[in-house]
């Protein structure tokens, strides 16, 4: 189990090596950000479809979509990534690692986001819907002028958390060879046979991006709530 403890036997952090690999890691960070952004955009849209499908009022559709969402939410993303990447070719569909990774991450987080949307829509009191009906507002006006402005503020924290969540899950894409940050660090590590600097720097880069993003999202939430007139 625990195989040993000596005080720093092989610890030699080399600054020269760290600076040498920094540019490559930064380039890979751009890939990571691109993957997270693309995945999030897909998840936002598919998640909305999942959420709306559960509001159609047709019981069979609601039940089937619920079960699909549950299935996606309770199985590991990394297995889903493998599944989508390897199953396609078996049936003659070849997807690039990048495409299958985006589909997997997009679908996975769509399941989570549909729950956030659902909770947001459900938080709008029934009276608001009834009032819209009484005023004979069209469906578009009901949604865009009345419902969404009220459903958005309670949904934003969840949406923000999953943006950071997607960013932190992108390293899993390395298993099918997407050249994101963790993939680059592993490649550098095995080339120079030094893992200390690459992996430590990856950890620091993740912290440097996710902590300010989380902070910025908190600010954005209160800004939106104010802009929509939901809070003074």
């Amino acid at each position: 189990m625990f195989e040993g403890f000596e005080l720093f036997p092989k610890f030699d952090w080399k600054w020269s090596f760290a600076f040498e690999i920094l540019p490559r890691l930064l380039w890979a960070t751009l890939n990571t950000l691109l993957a997270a952004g693309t995945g999030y955009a897909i998840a936002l849209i598919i998640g909305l479809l999942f959420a709306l499908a559960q509001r159609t009022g047709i019981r069979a559709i609601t039940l089937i979509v619920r079960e699909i969402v549950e299935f996606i939410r309770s199985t590991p993303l990394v297995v889903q990534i493998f599944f989508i990447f390897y199953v396609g070719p078996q049936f003659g569909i070849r997807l690039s690692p990048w495409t299958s990774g985006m589909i997997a991450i997009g679908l996975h987080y769509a399941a989570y986001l549909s729950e956030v949307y659902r909770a947001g829509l459900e938080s709008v009191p029934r009276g608001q819907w009834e009032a819209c009906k009484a005023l004979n507002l069209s469906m578009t006006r009901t949604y865009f002028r009345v419902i969404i402005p009220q459903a958005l503020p309670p949904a934003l924290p969840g949406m923000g958390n999953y943006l950071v969540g997607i960013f932190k899950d992108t390293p899993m894409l390395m298993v099918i060879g997407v050249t994101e940050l963790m993939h680059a660090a592993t490649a550098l590590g095995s080339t120079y046979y030094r893992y200390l600097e690459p992996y430590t720097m990856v950890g620091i880069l993740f912290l440097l991006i996710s902590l300010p993003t989380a902070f910025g999202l908190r600010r954005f939430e209160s800004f939106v709530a104010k802009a929509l007139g939901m809070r003074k």
Partner: protein
Amino acid sequence: MQHYLEYLQAYGGRFVDGTLVTIQQTLLAALLAIFVAALFGMMRLSEKWLIRGTSIVYIEFFRGTSLLVQLYWIFFVLPLLGVTFDKFTAGFVAVGLNLGAYGAELVRGSIEAVPKGQYEACHALNMSYYKRMRRIILPQALLLMLPPWGNLLIELLKGTALVSLISVTDLMFEAKQINGTTYLSAESFGTALIIYYLMARVVVSPGMRAFERYWGKKMGRI
């Protein structure tokens, strides 16, 4: 169908082996996560800034970086600092420490959500800190935090799939190996997905709901 049954006959045993390792990893990681969550969740509420600060650093660090990065760091880098774990231990330690940080926030949130009057009543009855926590606050906080812990345990179960990347022979690892020799990807990864789904949906969720009901009754809420 016939084909799939033959497939299961040939490789079912390996899926069972892998599932057992996944269950071990999940149980050990869950124990560690619960311990870590309780410890850092309570430390987060301390009045002493050093204790509170330590807990904040721990929580933000583990929530700010990826589980995969932490796993690789513990397995590949920690030995250079003199702490060497075998792969099985490194696996559940990484998962437990990571999910424990999320759990610590649940512990903190639920303790804070216990109504103020309960604290005041404890003061009025001259209870010590220890007695107050054990007899009054924590039982009520537990009731509040059980539903989100159910979700967290499913996240933890899913997190253990990553330990296959440092070659722990769990369910995911077996699926990958079988896929590598048979090229039957839909069957291999599909079976793994279904087993993960059943573990979450048939074991973890109902188990947690039963525990919630039991605890609710014990607290006289139902």
